[in-house]
């Protein structure tokens, strides 16, 4: 009997035990491209424009920063703020306080090229509650112990709202993101699980909800898909760069985020 069992397991193993090996692959070294990462929130602090360049894929090290750029933020009325470089490649936004419904334009002159992008500030969106679920059942396969954070709210009728979520656990901001696309569940009770995070009873969870426009949603959605599965590349049949709103082929994105917060201690 024991022997049959071993044969059976062996056969199953043939199907599922595939072997992994690290191999050498020659990738072309691309010409460096400009990356402009700009976030403008409707709160005063922490808004900045970071300009850098692409580097090698296998051994990126430090990415080169781009100094000496001229960066201007212009609102709908034509008011202009010229950003000053605080450290190499970082240009903080200090004067502009973004308002819902306004269109903001960033103009960047760097490395003898001009790049431009627009974004419309949305109205902040408040989340009703957080729910915590034991990590078992369909979402439990292979996951850590602990509890899953599920974000709950009522989707307003008629609006296609797009949301981006970030979380701070015990005062530490997590790099994980969750996204919500209101087109699919217009007017229903929505539940968005934060799949990649686990919390324990007694943890303090601060959830940041950012209302964003569709372009920003599409960008983050593509970004999460690309970096969400390890290092991306090769996993998707047709990986591509997330579509940027910068003119002139710059990578990165200019997004406006309308912020709301909710803090809860895990019961």
């Amino acid at each position: 009997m024991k022997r049959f069992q071993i044969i059976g397991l062996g056969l199953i193993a043939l199907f599922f035990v595939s072997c992994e090996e690290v191999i050498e692959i020659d990738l072309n070294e691309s010409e460096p491209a400009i990356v402009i990462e700009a976030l403008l929130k409707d709160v005063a602090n922490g808004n900045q424009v970071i300009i850098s360049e692409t580097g090698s894929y296998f051994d990126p090290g430090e990415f080169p920063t781009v100094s000496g750029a001229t960066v201007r933020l212009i609102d709908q009325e034509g008011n202009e703020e010229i950003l000053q470089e605080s450290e190499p490649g970082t240009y903080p936004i200090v004067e502009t306080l973004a308002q819902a419904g306004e269109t903001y334009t960033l103009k960047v002159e760097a490395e003898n090229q001009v790049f431009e992008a627009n974004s419309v500030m949305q109205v902040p969106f408040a989340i009703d509650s957080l729910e915590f679920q034991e990590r078992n059942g369909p979402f439990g396969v292979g996951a850590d112990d602990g509890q899953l954070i599920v974000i709950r709210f009522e989707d307003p009728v008629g609006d296609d709202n797009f949301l981006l979520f970030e979380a701070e656990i015990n005062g530490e901001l997590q790099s994980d993101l969750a996204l919500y696309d209101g087109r699919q569940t217009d007017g229903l009770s929505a539940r968005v699980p934060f799949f990649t995070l686990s919390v324990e009873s007694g943890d303090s969870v601060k959830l940041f909800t950012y209302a964003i426009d569709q372009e920003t949603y599409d960008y983050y959605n593509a970004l999460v898909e690309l970096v969400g599965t390890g290092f991306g590349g090769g996993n998707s049949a047709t990986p591509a760069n997330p579509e940027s709103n910068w003119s002139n082929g710059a990578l990165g994105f200019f997004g406006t985020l309308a912020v709301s917060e909710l803090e809860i201690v895990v019961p």
Partner: protein
Amino acid sequence: MKQQTNLWSQVGKYSIFSLLLTFLSIPQIQAQNKSLSGYVRDGMTGEALIGATIFVPSLKKGAYTNDYGFYSLTLPSGTYDVQFRYLGFVVDTQTVNLTENAKIEVELLPEQTSVDEVVISSKAPSSNVNSNEMGVTSLSINEIKKIPVIFGETDVLKTIQLLPGVKPAGEGNSGFYVRGGSSDQNLILLDEAPVYNASHLLGFFSVFNGDAIKNTKLYKGNQPAEYGGRLSSTMDISMRDGNTKDYKLTGGIGLISSRLTFEGPIKEDEGSFMVSGRRTYADLFLGLSNDEALSNSALYFYDLNAKANYKLGEKDQIFLSGYFGRDVFQFQDNFGIDWGNTTATLRWNHIFNDKLFLNSSLIYSDYDYSINIDAVDGSLFSGIQDWNLKENFTYYANSQNTIDFGVDAIYHTFTPGGFVSSEENLNMELEDRYALETAAYVSHDWSPTNNFKLTYGLRLSNFTVLGPGTFYQYNAEGAVVDSSVYTSSEVVKNYSGLEPRINATYILGENHSVKASYARNRQNIHLLSNSTSSTPTDLWIPSSEIVAPEISDQWSVGYFRNFNDNKWEASVEVYYKDLQNQIDYQNGADIFLNENVESQLVFGDGWAYGAEFLLKKNVGKFTGWVSYTLSRTMRQFEEINDGNPFPARQDRIHDVSVVAIYEPNKKWSFSGSFVYYTGDAITFPSGSYSIDGNIVPYYTERNGYRMPDYHRLDLSATWYGKNPETNLNFSLYNAYGRKNAFTIDFRESETNPGTTEAVRTHLFQWVPSVTYNFSF
């Protein structure tokens, strides 16, 4: 554009019918023609022989039997020696005194398989040179059974991939690419019923059980006007009819699966039946496991083929055949996947007179899958269902002219899917879609001289998307801008078009010929696949206001030559194919349970070209073939790769297959097959950058890199008992243990954090198997 199409159709209609009238009127002037018709069957089993040759040496005229073994030949009155031949069978010569229309039913007896008379082709010896067919591959099951495959299972789909112009979709994938087309551009028919997902166990096996199959024919885009609906190929698989003489039990016991077939006469020489089943049982051992995770899991498939036929007098015969297969995969109590095909075909052959043959078919096909998630007591599901009615007439006008004509109507129901569970707020269900696909066709086989043959035809195809349902319009960003609601059977969108087909053969001499062909094909149902392997979650969608029909035009020419008394066959074919309205995904597309899936698609063009070489040895102790294909296949989409052309994933520049079979005596047979092909085109990053502290790969072009080249050698040895149907087969898949890349992924290096490394996953290194086949 519109005017052009109309003009085309006018010209097309006019020329086809005037030509037909011209040719058909000729025989009326010649007096005293009589017809000779009947069936050719296997004398041992009563199985109808498809493609057997009827030949009159004194006139150098002949005919082939059709899919039901029927032939009809018109000759001037007189006395003739008529040869009936089918390779592997003893030639039967009958003297016929043709003073009036005659019927001859012929039963051929198999040759004793001796050392120098090994059967590996079902065709007449020189048919590759003489028949007016190119881009066609025909394999009999005897031929297929000699070639080693994984886990020792005879597999028509895997074997067909060893021929030029046909390429495997990858390790553990029964999908295939024909002449640069994608795998959803192949129409796979089992007794005329379309099979929508031809794979078992995620593609390691095909759904075609070798014991139930009689014949396989693959048209690489130049299909006769009778077939349509896919751009790249039509694969026509016929099930065996069952023995009309004796009851017979055959089977096979293997490490992975076992098979059993029972067949016999319903009434001797009047009708027969065949039932054949297969099941894998590797999972039965799981139940014995102490590990709960394994003992509650399951992984198996089973399938059942059944067929029956009965003669209703001299002029009528009915056939009923069906296929049912399911795959089940259960992982503990967490989730399970369950998928499969069901097909059924009811056929009625009617002979109006010696010259007019009609086959009517009523066909049903269903493919569906469901993924069960136990924790929420829910399931995800999707599928497609067809009802199809086909009428095909063949008119054997005279020995120079044969006309095929008919109509075809398919009613499709597409179930894009949904999720149903006990938690209501998770539930969603997408609307079903309905479409009617119809076609009318006519095709004329004309042999004006003994050296020249022409087959030309026209297929008028029509695709109507029907209500009920809500249909959306989208703007350039993919957002819904408008919607329209249609009631039941209301026409949402209609597409129609003409598909001209032409094949010409000029016989240069006894053993060589040149052939040329042109064909247009239209495709109205499209597969959206969210992975690279043949997973059950692939989604079929119909053409719509947004998705236009895919169209291909293929031109090809070839030179065919046989050597050494037809012992060696050689051919070279070159082709060029132009593709319109090809489908790809937008960057970051989301196709899973998306009501607006059409907004995620982009449309573009493609082209493919190549040269196919084949050298084949048909007789002797040593048989086999070498095939080589040199080809390219490109795509161009405005939205992808900055609008620049890029190679399709299946752009494999070099593709080589070598098959060798050595049969030293009646006891043993040895075979080997070797394949080599250029790695698939793939997108890899050419750099990286930082966003919000994440390292993001930077892509510079679509499909700009290559997977490593693929190559593999398989070996097999078979020992035969006194009855050759009792045998023991040993096979070794991937004999030299090549680690072929299944996927290449990138991840952060464990040994050198902060850097990235490439990881290759390979599936099979050395898969041995043993199968015992028996027959009573």
